[in-house]
């Protein structure tokens, strides 16, 4: 039996007084699994990813992550260091002025020494075909470039689990293939939201559909 990294027990998440987006959702995320998350617009895919790292302040039910039940913001600090979340909108993700500063932000938060951070920034940018972007200004990049840099900010932290929200949106064919290759070669646990079926088929081997706030295994 593989190790369970995330376990959701009757998780219910709502925004304000709206009807819940996730309703008594129960599911496990096992180490090494590679899951594609699909569902209609507004079905709660992004909400689920945020909830997994404790960014939905208000949730009912129980959430187990990396060996503990987690409830408060402080419980989730460790989860966020071990699971990398890629946001759907790169403008939310990138807030430093230069690319290298933004990629270095996460690794510094992990407490890595400066030399290791610098190496991680350089290597991650090189892997993602972003060498030479170090001093570029993040908000002046194109949408696709911003997406690649956002991916770099997550990969640079070398997380055990990747939670990716629409990672290929706005990417050209070449960079979609590059990302596909990187994800296929990594042994990390994956939970990927995407509307790109070919991409999902290539990097994941299971699919979960969110329907009426519940998880349906396909």
């Amino acid at each position, binding site marked *: 039996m593989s190790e369970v990294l995330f376990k959701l027990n009757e998780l219910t998440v709502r925004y304000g007084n709206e009807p819940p987006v996730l309703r008594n959702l129960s599911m496990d995320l096992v180490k090494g699994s590679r899951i594609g998350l699909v569902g209609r617009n507004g079905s709660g895919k992004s909400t689920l990813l*945020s909830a997994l*790292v404790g*960014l939905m302040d208000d949730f009912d039910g129980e959430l187990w992550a990396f060996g503990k039940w987690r409830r408060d*913001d402080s419980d989730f*600090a460790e989860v*966020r*260091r071990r699971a*990398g*979340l890629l*946001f759907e*909108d790169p*403008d*939310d*993700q990138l*807030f*430093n*002025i*230069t690319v*290298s*500063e933004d990629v*270095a*932000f*996460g690794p*510094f*938060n*992990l407490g890595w020494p400066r030399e290791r*951070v*610098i190496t991680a*920034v350089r290597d991650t940018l090189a892997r993602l075909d972003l060498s030479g972007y170090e001093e570029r200004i993040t*908000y002046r990049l194109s949408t696709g470039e911003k997406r690649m840099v956002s991916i770099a*900010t*997550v990969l640079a*932290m070398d997380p055990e689990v990747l939670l990716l929200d629409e990672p290929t949106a706005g990417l050209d064919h070449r960079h979609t293939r590059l990302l596909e290759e990187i994800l296929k070669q990594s042994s990390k646990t994956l939970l990927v939201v995407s509307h790109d079926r070919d991409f999902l088929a290539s990097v994941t081997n299971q699919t979960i559909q969110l329907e009426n706030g519940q998880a349906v295994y396909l």
Partner: protein
Amino acid sequence: MTSLLLLKVDSVIGNIDPRARLVSGFLFSVLLAVAQKWEVIAAGFLSAFLFCAAARLPWSGLRVRLIGLNVFMLALLLVMPWSVPGSVLWNIGNWTYTIEGVELALMVAVKGNAIVLAMSVFISTIDTASLGHALEHLRAPRRLVHLFLFTVRYLDILHHESRRLFRAARARGFAPRTDLHTYRTVSRLIGTIMVRSLDRSERVLAAMKARGYCGRFYLLHHFSLRMSDALFIMTVSVFVAVLAWMEWG
């Protein structure tokens, strides 16, 4: 947008350590602000002007600043002499416009111009990211530095967002006029920008937390002082020392 803050230059000043420039601009401004003697203020103005010329600052950028400042100074010249006692130049009833008042207003104007020139050459030539980092290295309050950096970062995004919204409105046939429909639409667009900004700030905080942020920023780049920086610091120090000696010596 950021061109209002930043003067692009292509001269030696651009290579001087931002910390040295920041401190120079600060010292120069404080000295000029407290100076009382005309010869000190004039010498300060002249040296600030010389620094600008030496750094080959673009005249167009300077002009915008100086016009803005001097419109304000003109207003000061019209108003201030009425409230300073001294020998009367004109009077309207009990109200007197005095020579001492004119002198004081002129002094403020020359000081103001000198300080704007000094700030332009020393501080406006630092790009915003380096300015933030230099401030942090100089132990400026961290919260203020981050507020500054975030403001610069998100000013641009807000600007784009508002342009995008107005473009979307225009695409559906909206043309601004002076009527109720225009006011209503504009107020909705502005309201939307505010709500979106708030939402965005929450999402950005979430993104920061997702990458392990716990209240501290780390700087990737470190500055190091070089020979040219030392020379620059010495030159500015000599100017500042001479001005200070003229004032108090």
